[in-house]
């Protein structure tokens, strides 16, 4: 996570009242080192104040789970600087520093009461007297990992672009996007679902507190809505199947329904208590997933829209998809769980998941149902997991799993070629097309300079649009049907329908 380290370092440097790393030792430190100041082996010569020697340096308590959010961790300076330059006099304990500098640091000179005091402090802070504790180590270490074993995580950080293999793809997939659009102010938040492509060929994009519609046929841009409060933002967008209504989830827990023809808001459904990061339609039922982990079903035709609550996640629901036949709802959360919900309530009147998959080691945002095989679901895990898993939801088995070596943000299936495409983050920010069911890589689409956040597919299934943290939308023509093959397919489809007609006779 080089960029996080860089940012943290930048902040550290700009703050100026924390000790400057890699600075030459101050005179008092050098003196202490020369006189061979006692202290625990690795800590020698760093901190001037005695009780600090017993404590680990610079503790900080992040308010949220580390690694799960993009915010930076503030560190509190505990030691007076390592340099003569004093940038912030108010935080320096000048009297203490002066005293310690002038008097030669000799621990034996401590009065007994002082020792008692220090001991009391140590017990208070550590919970036990560290001096009194004995540290034991189990001897006879187990065999280390075999020679030549390299930490596989290194692959994450040092991935080099593999040269295009001599493998014949069977079709030409352009490596450059068809089109690149600007998406300024797009929120770089992994857990949101900010783009969706309608069956009427409109692309809805949520940019911070506004939603824009891009007419793919004419190129026209419509500014559909803007949040009233400047601090609020749009957290998810989803088109109804017919493409005339757009559902919008917001950071202030609202689910809004907009009519595109009239560009008017039809409904504002409030039932959640935290931001709505995921939405999915099942004819007239709109399901919404919130930061609390709850999923609500809304019947948009009636006034009492909130018809059901599904509680299966303890953290934010970031992936939500109804199966194409409307029988199951798949949800993925920040708690690393994937739940499969039935469309109807159980005997007790409550919704309980028919399956729960715990194998992912990271947040599951990428959730996609296979369009040509019923009950097959693909899921992808976040940074801690990096795996794509294919499941059979009836039997609950994991049909296959593949390590994608990078955070998976989205998966889309393509009927045209029996493949699926996944969007990734650090290091390459690429889109990977995989062949199903062999799970081999067909190709990788590179171009984004920051992590991919969302993927969506065009109504004809030939193009995939990707939104990334580099504030661009790229359109990839990766599933374009060969015109000859297309005609064959249409012929096959029409043949099928005539057989059905004969059957009914």
């Amino acid at each position: 996570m080089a960029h996080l380290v860089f940012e943290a370092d930048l902040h550290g440097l700009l703050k100026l009242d924390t000790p400057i790393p890699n600075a030459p030792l101050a005179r008092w430190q050098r003196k202490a080192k020369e006189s061979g100041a006692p202290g625990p082996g690795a800590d020698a010569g760093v901190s001037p104040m005695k009780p600090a020697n017993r404590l680990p340096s610079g503790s900080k308590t992040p308010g949220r789970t580390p690694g799960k959010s993009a915010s930076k961790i503030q560190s509190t300076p505990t030691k007076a600087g390592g340099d003569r330059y004093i940038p912030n006099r108010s935080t320096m304990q000048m009297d203490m520093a002066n005293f310690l500098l002038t008097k030669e640091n000799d621990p034996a000179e401590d009065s007994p009461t002082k020792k008692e005091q220090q001991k009391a402090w140590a017990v208070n802070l550590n919970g036990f007297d560290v001096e009194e504790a004995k540290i034991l180590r189990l001897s006879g270490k187990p065999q280390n990992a075999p020679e030549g074993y390299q930490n596989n995580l290194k692959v994450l950080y040092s991935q080099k672009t593999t040269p295009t293999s001599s493998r014949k793809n069977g079709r030409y997939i352009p490596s450059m996007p068809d089109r690149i659009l600007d998406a300024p102010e797009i929120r770089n938040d992994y857990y949101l679902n900010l783009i969706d492509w309608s069956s009427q060929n409109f692309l809805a994009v949520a940019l911070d507190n506004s939603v824009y519609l891009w007419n793919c046929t004419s190129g026209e841009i419509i500014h559909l809505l803007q949040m009233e409060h400047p601090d609020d933002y749009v957290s998810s967008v989803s088109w109804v199947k017919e493409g005339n209504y757009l559902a919008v989830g917001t950071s202030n827990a609202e689910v809004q329904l907009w009519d595109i023809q009239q560009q008017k808001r039809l409904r504002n459904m409030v039932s959640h208590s935290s931001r709505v990061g995921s939405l999915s339609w099942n004819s007239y039922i709109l399901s919404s997933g919130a930061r609390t982990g709850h999923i609500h079903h809304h019947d948009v035709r009636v006034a009492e829209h909130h018809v059901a609550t599904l509680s299966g996640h303890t953290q934010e629901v970031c992936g939500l998809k109804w199966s194409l036949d409307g029988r199951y709802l798949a949800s993925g959360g920040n708690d690393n769980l994937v739940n499969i919900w039935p469309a109807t309530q159980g005997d007790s009147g409550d919704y309980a998941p028919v399956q729960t998959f715990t194998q992912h080691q990271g947040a599951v945002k990428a959730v996609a149902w296979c369009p040509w095989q019923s009950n097959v679901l693909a899921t992808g895990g976040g940074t801690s997991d990096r795996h794509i898993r294919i499941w059979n939801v009836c039997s609950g088995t994991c049909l296959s799993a593949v390590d994608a070596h990078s955070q998976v943000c989205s998966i889309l299936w393509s009927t045209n070629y029996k493949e699926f495409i996944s969007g990734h983050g650090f290091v390459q920010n690429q889109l990977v097309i995989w062949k199903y069911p062999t799970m081999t890589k067909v190709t990788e689409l590179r171009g984004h300079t920051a992590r991919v956040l969302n993927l969506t597919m065009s109504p004809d299934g030939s193009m995939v649009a990707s939104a990334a943290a580099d504030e661009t939308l790229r359109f990839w023509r990766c599933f374009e049907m060969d015109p000859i093959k297309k005609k064959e397919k249409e012929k096959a489809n029409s043949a099928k329908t005539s057989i059905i007609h004969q059957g009914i006779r």
Partner: protein
Amino acid sequence: MARQAVREQQGITLRGSAEIVAEFFSYGINSILYQRGIYPPETFTRVQKYGLTLLVTTDPELKNYLNNVVEQMKEWLCKCLVQRLVVVISSIESNEVLERWQFDIECDKTAKDETVPREKSQKAIQDEIRSVIRQITATVTFLPLLETACAFDLLIYTDKDMAVPEKWEESGPQFIANSEEVRLRSFTTTIHKVNSMVAYKKDSFP
């Protein structure tokens, strides 16, 4: 499974609490070894525990080693003699400590004399343990990559006057110089409380 069900009805006893905490350490240490890449991932297998899929090692020597520690921990936890468990990850060539996982244990000594078990549901404890393990898994997003091959060490802080059992030897604390620290969630069984944190070497800017 039956034992667990019985335990649920009975509440938490000192022995039960020691078992829960020792079990947590076993799975926690396995998770750390897998996530930090100390051992090849192929040597780990998935098991279901705490409602999660956890990875535990299949290497027989390592399994043996960890079992010894866990058994010893159980004993000491029962007698409230252990204060801290530390997993030290150091580079094999330079012997430099790169990461230090510290689990502080607070033991309620009054529980030793109690006959009535304490009230806390297994489920609540499991939920808390689950959060800690998930946090350990998520730490890979900010912990610096361990470039060189690493080995791990287990340190236990006990009372000064405790006799050193065979197979164990005294050691130093093996702190990290210039470390960055992150405190993780804690869990409690009402008799034992475990606080977790990880300290890692601050990345020096090239």
